[in-house]
């Protein structure tokens, strides 16, 4: 029996780890080329992995496992692998038995019966030698703490949130992030409705122009090197009703304002329809987070993995006729002076358009 193909976790621009959601076959099932063999989840979306060839499948992971990019998660063989699968099951049973033997907990027969009756995890009982009274005490303690109104309740975070946290922790955990702010003036002669109309297409378009002039803002830090992205792909952080997703506008700098607006609309539409593809959600080189519609005065956005900076857009202050832009940047890649010049250029570009009347 020969291995025809090893299935690995594909490269993802934003994540270093993904989560196995579902295995669509059992070990030794026969699969055909292009069959969806498993579902994985990145911080941005769910992806189906396809069989690259016909054959018999062996899974090397389980649902819920966190795996790294490039890790082999399944193999496809040219023939029946029932012997291999059976020996795998046997060895895992032996391992489980061995683990039980190695457990330092010892319980009396009465205690063991009570533990089994109540389905208690033996490791949660603090004593090493467990008697019936210890189990009774544990049960009472659990019951009273369960009824307490003061006990804080917790909800497990979703898998995608877990990966999102990891992705955003990357740059932030270095402690090398600075944020600068600038106000953008809006025309005070406009009506309130006109003042609060969305500036996102204009900001995105001007941002792409500024990134051409300041390539360091379109780079990232890796192993003591600064890697400059070849393309300018601005990502827009969307969080409407279906979780945070960063929609990428490829080659943003090559689009005119109307095209940028069209792309933004397309992204919002796909987000609402839950039709964003992995391609829509990857390869962004700089991100814009727009919280203007929520009345936010000023905020510090978090830089995404493999990016040097992120721009935050706040709401228009109707009394002061202005809104705030915040730029968080990775100090390992660039410094305050360059970031300030970038933001100044952006400010000028936006104000020229919105103050021209």
């Amino acid at each position, binding site marked *: 029996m020969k291995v025809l193909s090893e299935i690995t976790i594909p490269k993802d621009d934003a994540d270093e780890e993904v989560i196995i959601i579902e295995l669509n076959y059992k070990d030794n099932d026969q699969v055909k080329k292009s069959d969806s063999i498993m579902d994985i989840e990145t911080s941005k979306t769910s992806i189906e992995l396809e069989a690259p060839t016909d054959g018999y499948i062996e899974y090397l992971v389980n649902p819920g496992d966190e795996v790294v990019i490039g890790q082999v998660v399944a193999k496809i063989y040219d023939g029946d692998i029932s012997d291999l699968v059976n020996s795998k099951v046997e060895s895992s049973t032996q391992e489980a038995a061995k683990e039980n033997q190695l457990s330092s907990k010892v319980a009396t027969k009465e205690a063991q019966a009570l533990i089994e009756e109540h389905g208690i995890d033996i490791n949660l009982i603090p004593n090493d030698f467990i008697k019936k009274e210890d189990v009774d005490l544990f049960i009472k303690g659990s019951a009273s703490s369960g009824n307490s109104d003061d006990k804080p309740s917790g909800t497990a975070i979703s898998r995608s949130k877990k990966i999102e946290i990891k992705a955003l922790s990357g740059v932030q955990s270095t402690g090398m992030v600075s944020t600068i702010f600038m106000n953008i003036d809006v025309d005070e002669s406009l009506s309130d*409705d006109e003042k609060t*109309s*969305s500036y*996102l*297409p204009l900001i995105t378009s001007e941002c792409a122009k500024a990134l051409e002039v300041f390539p360091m803002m379109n780079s990232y830090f890796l192993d003591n090197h600064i890697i400059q992205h070849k393309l300018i792909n601005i990502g827009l952080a969307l969080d*409407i009703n279906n979780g945070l997703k960063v929609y990428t506008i490829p080659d943003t700098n090559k689009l005119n304002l109307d095209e940028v*607006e*069209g792309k*933004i*609309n*397309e992204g*919002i*539409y796909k987000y*609402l*329809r839950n039709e964003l593809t992995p391609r829509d959600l990857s390869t962004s080189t700089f991100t814009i987070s727009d919280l203007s*519609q929520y009345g936010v005065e000023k905020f510090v956005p978090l830089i995404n993995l493999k990016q040097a900076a992120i721009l935050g857009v706040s709401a228009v202050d109707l009394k002061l006729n202005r809104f705030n832009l915040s730029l968080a940047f990775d100090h390992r890649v660039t410094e305050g002076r360059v970031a300030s010049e970038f933001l100044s250029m952006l400010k000028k570009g936006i104000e020229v358009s919105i103050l021209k009347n």
Partner: protein
Amino acid sequence: MDNSEILIGINKIFSQVFKDPDIKITGDTTSDDIKNWDSLNNMILVVTIEDFYNIRFDLNEVQKLKNVDDLCNCVAKYLSL
């Protein structure tokens, strides 16, 4: 279904999307006339109208619509397909 019937249906959708039960739209209504009719709410409107009438627009076509009259004509066109 004629345009006046479509307008009644779309008016209900506007009330729902812009959370204003008293909103009144006509064929001449444009995004300048409705508070908060920005690109985000426009896309929410599009998706809600599609779901309501069980149709799918061509997004490029939708982005060229100038007023509610154009929107009604567009809905009528997709309903007749």
